[in-house]
C-alpha cells in the first residue's frame, strides 16, 4: 500500500454520512468489547474466547483476521491498475489455506493451549523454545501491525477526505487507542466478535458492488474483461501475465519467491494460528478452516470483478485518483460509480458504506495482531519463561493487558514517523518470516520424531534471521528510488522476496540443529504428542460458564 500523498475521496456532500457510519462502526465495536469484557473471567476466556466459538463463527473470524484492508482495497486496486497480474496475490493467499487445513489447524488445536509456542513446548525444553517462538510471533505480528497502521493513516485520510499531516497522525492515534481498548477489555472473545461483524460487513459490501458491476455487463465476464482492457489503454496485455511481475529473469525468480512465501506463510502466521484455539474441538477447527476457504475464496473471486470493474468504469490513467492512491481508491470509487456516480445520492451512500467497511476492516485486523503479540508476551515470556509456570492466572491476565497497552503504544509511536516511508514490503516480509521460521518448526514438531529443542530454535532463529537479513540487503531497503532508503545503496541481494532462499534455509536449519542436539527426551514424547494431536485425547476443553 502506498503512503504517497492522496487526493481526498469524500466530497462535502457525503463526508458527514461517511463520518456518521464510521462513528456507528466504532460504537458497535465498543459495545461488543464491553459486553465481551463482562463475559470474560478466566485465562481461557481472555486468550481463547472460552473455546466456545462454533466452526462457522470462527470461520468468519478467521476470514476477518485474514482479509486486511490490503486485500480489500489493495488487491482490487492492483487488478484495476495491472489487470491479470493484480489477481496473482489472491491465488497464493487462498491456496495457502490448504496447508492450514491439511497439516496444521486440527493438530494445533488438539496439542496447544493459547499460543503458537504451546505446541512446541509440549515436548521441547520450554524456556528456549518459548523464547524463540515468542520472538518470532512478536516480530511477525509487529511487522504486519505497522504496515496496517501506516496504511490506516492514509486510507482513513483518503476515505474521510483528510489531507493534513496532523489529522492523519490523529487518525493513527485514534485507531491505535481503539485497538488497545478492544484487546485490553474484550480479549479474544471481544476481538473475535469484532472480526465476525467486520467479515459480515466486508462480504455483504463486496457482494453488493460485485452484483452491481455484473449487472452493468449483463453478467458476461468476457465483456467486462474486454471493457477493462480497452479502457486501461493497455489492450490485450491487460489480461495477460507480465504487467506487474516477471519483467526480466530477476523479476521472474522474484515472483516465484513471492509465490512460495504466500502459499507457505499463512499456516505460520501467529494471529491465524491462535484462532484455532477458540473452537471447542478439532473438528470445529477444521470446519472453521473450511468456512474460511469458502469465504476467502468467494471474496477473492469478487475482488476480481471489483478490480476489472474499476478498470472498466472509473478513470485509472495517469494523475487519476486510483493511480495516485496506488490502487487503494479503486473499490470506493467503483462503489460511487455503480451507485450512480459522483454527486448522486446512490453514489454517495455506496461510497460511504464501502469506506465504513474498509474502516471496520482496519480496526479488526490491528486488534487481532495486538492480541496475538500481547498473548505471547504474557503467556510465553512472562508466565512460562520468566515465572517458570508459577505465575497465578490473575498475574498473567494483568500482564497480558499491560502488554497489549505497551504494544499498542509502541505501534502508534512507530507508525507516525513510518508514514513517510514506503513500508508496504512489511506484509510480504511477515509472510516470509512465518514460512521460513514458524512453519518448519511446527511441521517438524508434528511429523518428525527425532526433532528436538536445538532443531526448533535453529529453525526459528535461522529462518527469521535469514529472511530479515536478505530483505535488509535487497532493493526493498536501498538502491532504488522506491526503496526505504533511496539515497543509500547496500543492496547485494537482488530479490525483493527472500522466501526462495530463507524457507529452505529454515527447514535446513531445523535438520542441522536436530542432529547437533543431544537430547533424547523430545523423541520419547513424540508418540504422546501424536496421540494427543490426532485424537484430541487430553486436549484443552471449552470453558463452561
Amino acid at each position: 500500500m502506498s503512503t504517497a500523498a492522496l487526493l481526498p475521496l469524500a466530497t462535502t456532500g457525503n463526508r458527514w454520512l461517511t463520518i456518521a457510519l464510521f462513528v456507528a462502526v466504532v460504537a458497535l465495536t465498543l459495545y461488543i468489547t464491553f459486553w465481551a469484557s463482562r463475559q470474560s473471567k478466566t485465562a481461557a476466556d481472555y486468550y481463547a474466547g472460552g473455546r466456545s466459538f462454533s466452526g462457522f463463527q470462527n470461520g468468519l473470524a478467521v476470514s476477518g483476521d485474514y482479509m486486511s484492508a490490503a486485500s480489500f482495497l489493495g488487491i482490487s486496486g492492483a487488478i484495476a491498475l495491472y489487470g491479470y497480474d493484480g489477481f496473482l496475490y489472491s491465488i497464493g493467499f487462498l491456496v495457502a489455506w490448504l496447508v492450514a487445513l491439511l497439516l496444521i489447524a486440527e493438530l494445533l488445536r488438539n496439542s496447544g493451549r493459547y499460543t503458537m509456542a504451546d505446541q512446541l513446548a509440549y515436548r521441547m525444553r520450554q524456556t528456549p523454545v518459548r523464547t524463540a517462538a515468542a520472538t518470532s510471533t512478536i516480530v511477525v505480528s509487529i511487522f504486519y501491525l505497522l504496515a496496517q497502521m501506516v496504511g490506516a493513516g492514509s486510507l482513513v485520510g483518503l476515505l474521510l477526505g483528510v489531507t493534513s499531516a496532523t489529522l492523519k497522525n490523529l487518525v493513527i492515534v485514534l485507531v491505535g487507542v481503539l485497538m488497545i481498548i478492544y484487546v485490553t477489555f474484550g480479549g479474544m472473545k471481544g476481538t473475535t466478535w469484532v472480526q465476525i461483524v467486520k467479515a459480515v460487513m466486508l462480504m455483504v459490501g463486496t457482494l453488493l458492488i460485485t452484483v452491481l458491476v455484473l449487472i452493468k455487463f449483463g453478467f458476461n465476464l468476457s465483456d467486462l474483461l474486454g471493457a477493462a482492457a480497452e479502457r486501461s489503454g493497455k489492450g490485450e496485455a491487460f489480461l495477460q501475465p507480465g504487467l506487474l511481475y516477471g519483467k526480466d529473469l530477476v523479476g521472474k525468480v522474484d515472483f516465484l519467491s513471492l509465490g512460495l512465501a504466500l502459499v507457505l506463510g499463512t499456516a505460520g502466521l501467529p494471529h491465524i494460528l491462535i484462532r484455532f484455539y477458540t473452537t471447542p474441538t478439532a473438528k470445529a477447527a477444521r470446519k472453521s478452516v473450511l468456512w474460511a476457504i469458502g469465504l476467502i475464496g468467494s471474496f477473492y473471486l469478487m475482488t476480481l470483478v471489483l478490480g476489472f470493474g474499476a478498470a472498466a468504469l472509473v478513470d485509472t490513467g495517469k494523475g487519476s485518483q486510483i493511480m495516485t492512491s496506488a490502487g487503494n481508491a479503486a473499490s470506493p470509487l467503483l462503489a460511487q460509480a455503480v451507485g450512480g456516480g459522483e454527486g448522486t445520492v446512490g453514489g454517495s451512500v455506496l461510497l460511504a458504506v464501502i469506506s465504513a467497511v474498509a474502516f471496520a476492516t482496519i480496526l479488526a485486523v490491528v486488534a487481532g495482531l495486538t492480541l496475538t503479540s500481547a498473548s505471547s508476551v504474557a503467556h510465553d515470556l512472562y508466565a512460562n519463561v520468566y515465572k517458570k509456570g508459577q505465575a497465578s492466572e490473575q498475574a498473567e491476565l494483568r500482564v497480558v493487558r499491560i502488554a497489549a497497552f505497551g504494544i499498542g503504544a509502541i505501534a502508534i509511536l512507530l507508525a507516525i514517523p513510518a508514514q513517510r516511508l514506503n513500508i508496504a514490503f512489511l506484509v510480504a516480509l511477515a509472510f516470509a518470516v512465518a514460512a521460513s521460521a514458524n512453519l518448519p518448526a511446527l511441521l517438524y514438531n508434528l511429523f518428525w520424531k527425532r526433532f528436538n529443542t536445538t532443531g526448533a530454535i535453529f529453525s526459528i532463529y535461522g529462518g527469521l534471521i535469514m529472511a530479515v537479513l536478505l530483505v535488509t540487503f535487497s532493493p526493498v531497503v536501498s538502491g532504488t528510488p522506491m526503496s526505504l532508503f533511496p539515497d543509500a545503496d547496500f543492496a547485494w541481494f537482488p530479490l525483493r522476496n527472500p522466501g526462495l532462499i530463507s524457507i529452505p534455509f529454515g527447514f535446513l536449519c531445523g535438520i542441522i540443529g536436530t542432529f547437533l542436539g543431544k537430547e533424547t527426551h523430545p523423541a520419547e514424547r513424540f508418540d504422546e504428542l501424536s496421540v494427543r494431536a490426532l485424537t484430541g485425547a487430553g486436549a484443552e476443553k471449552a470453558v463452561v460458564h
Partner: protein
Amino acid sequence: MADRVTPMYGSGEADRLPAHDHEVYNAIAQESGFTELRRRYRSFAFPATIAFMAWYILYVVCNNWARDFMNTKVFGNINVALIFGLLQFVSTFVIAYLYARHANKSLDPLATQLREEFDRETGR
C-alpha cells in the same frame, strides 16, 4: 523450591502431566486403532499437499516462463491464464471438500473412540 521446579520445567509441558497419563498415551500409541488412524490421516494429507503444491508451483512457473501458452485465447476475452488461475480456486475448493469428507467418514469415528478410551483410562 525454584531449584526443584526448574529442571522439571526445562524439559517440556508434557512433564507436568500425571505419570499415568503418559502410560495411557503410550499404550494408545501402540494400538492398531491408532496406527490405522495415523495411516489414514497421512495417506490423505501428505499426497494431497504434494499435489496442490506442485499444481500451484506449475501455475506460478507458467506465469513466468510459458506466456505464449498462457496468452492463448479460449473464448471471448477469456485466456488460458485466467482459466488456470480460476482452476486454482476450483482445486482448492475440491481438495478442501474431499478432505472434509475423508475426515468425517474415516478419521473422526476412530479419533472419538480413542479419545473416549483415554478419558476412561485416566478417569476424566
